């Protein structure tokens, strides 16, 4: 299992005695190499779940093992390291750093890992080739279309060969056609690179393209289609 969540509870204290329980004891296992969609309406707790999965936040209660590491209550600096080396983020709004080239954007996670410039550049070029963006590597983000930006972002997410790719509404800011192209890249990353991809979305149609759909509502899992892709 690449991800093991055990009875995860997340509470927000919004001034005593009020507290808001967003995740109410969530247990979820994700096997390596699967393409999972986590679906839920806004307010269902899916963003909170994503923050915990992405080691951006700590659960109030419960255990979270990521790739064999107990991520539960690590200090900030360790969480940064986990994010850097075990997680690849893809955001709805691409989040490319505006003043640096596509290539430099892809290099960024490797820069924070402490990899040398030459090696970084080489790997970044390979990754951009994987998402068919090698001819645009010297471009600034504002010279790229939405779809192109997202492809660069996917290349960046793959930079440190992470255990999971965590994509938060990656097609949300794209038109259907471009969105499908981006989905195809995720498919390819999942099949060819054997990466575990977790897609967080409220789009049911998109979710159906994945191996497994986990639906959450009010901080609880209400349905889980299981290992459809693996079984088929």
């Amino acid at each position, binding site marked *: 299992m690449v991800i093991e969540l055990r009875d995860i509870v997340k509470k927000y204290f919004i001034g005593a005695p009020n507290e808001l329980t967003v995740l109410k004891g969530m247990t979820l296992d994700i096997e390596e190499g699967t393409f999972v969609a986590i679906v839920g309406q806004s307010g269902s707790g899916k963003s909170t779940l994503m*923050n915990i999965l*992405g080691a*951006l*936040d700590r659960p109030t209660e419960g255990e979270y093992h990521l790739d064999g590491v107990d991520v539960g209550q690590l200090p*900030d*600096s360790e969480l*940064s*390291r986990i*994010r*850097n*080396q075990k997680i690849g*983020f893809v*955001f709805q709004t691409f*989040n490319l*750093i*505006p*003043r*640096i080239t596509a290539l430099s954007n892809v290099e*960024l*996670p490797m*820069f*924070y*890992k402490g990899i040398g*410039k030459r090696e970084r550049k080489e790997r970044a070029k390979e990754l951009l080739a994987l998402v068919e963006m090698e001819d645009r590597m010297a471009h600034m983000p504002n010279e790229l279309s939405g779809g192109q930006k997202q492809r660069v972002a996917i290349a*960046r997410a793959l930079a*440190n060969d992470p255990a999971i790719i965590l994509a938060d509404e990656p097609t949300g800011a794209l038109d259907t056609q471009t969105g499908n192209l981006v989905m195809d890249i995720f498919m390819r990353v999942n099949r060819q690179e054997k990466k575990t991809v977790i897609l967080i979305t409220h789009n049911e149609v998109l979710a159906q393209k994945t191996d497994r759909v986990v639906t959450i509502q009010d901080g609880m899992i209400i349905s889980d289609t299981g290992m459809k892709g693996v079984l088929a």
Partner: protein
Amino acid sequence: MIWENIGLAFQSLKSNKMRALLTMLGIIIGIMSIIGIMTIGDALTASVSGSLSSLGTNNITLSVQERGTQSNGFGPPGMGGDRGSSSGKTPESDDLITDQMIADLTETFGGLVTGVSISYSAGSAKAQDGDLYANITISGVNANYGVANNVTQLSGSFIAESDVENKSQSAVVSDKFVKSMFPNNENPIGQTVKVYKTRSIELYTIIGVYQYEQQGFGGSTASEKDMSTTFYIPVTTAKQDLLEKNYNTITVIGSVSSDVDDLTNQLQRHFDRLYANNEDWQVSVSNMSSMLDTVQSTLSTISMAIAFIAGISLLVGGIGVMNIMLVSVTERTKEIGTRKALGAQNFHIQLQFVMEAVMVSAIGGIIGLILGIGVGALVSSILGAPLVISAVTTIGSVLFAMAIGVVFGLYPAKKAAKMDPIDALRYE
């Protein structure tokens, strides 16, 4: 890591050139003022030192001063007759240096002293011959004056001991004076000029011409033609219609072999004994090197004071850097969130922003330095002083500017580093 952060900082500055320039402006002005002032100060010191040491390093100045007042030893020697003292009190005739004292001094110190230079200011006057005129400052001197003050003789001779003894009506005039009074290239030596004083008209025979040298720095407000030059006459001649026969200031010329500082101390002790019973006055003895020290320390104190004021503008510049960095951090909240999501540690973020502040300050510092040297060079050339650029000030000022970047960039950078990644990512 550092180098890549410098590159990153450059890119960030390049993307917002106008803002970066305006931010730098405070630092530029601050460093420019400091460097400019320091350069001008150094140039002045060099210039004053140069002109003072040209007056002779073996000269020892003795002047009557009121007890209790600070001896600053400032002012070129040979300005005798200047009775002004800091408290406004005037020494009585008995308090002044007498001819007898000078004679005793020469006898006591014998081989250590080459001579005693005396000068006595006898006021301003005008030499006139028909339409031709020249403004003069009459100075009664003895023969040693020319030696002590390095008067450059162009023709004829300087006032001689015999002129002093005979109270002769001879005069040594400047080349400027000759140009004004004898425009037709006549030989001035032996000519008689009419000098119009406030109450009398006197006749003097020119026995020599010296080269006029502009004293110190800065131009006179008088036009070239109206500029007053010194008109040397025998001191005895100058004093014959004055009641006061004693001297406020004399200059002792140490012999080449004597130790000037040692002689200065001996003279001081000698006069301390002579003036032991004088309750109000004493003789202050100083030599060129102590005068040089005084001048240099006075000038450097002044430059330091002005530089300190200029330093305040640097402080304001630093606050400007901090202000813009705070804006920049807020603007780039989402970027900070993204970087943190990609695995940036807090120190990565902090270093990035500090480096940016340091770059702004350093570039501003370098521009300020260049402009400051430019200002210094301009002012030095106007003053006719040599341009002195010290390596310490140059490197120091750029380092100081960088330090300002660190100090004022630290708070915004810490603020950026401490951001919660979730909040930062959500920021629009």
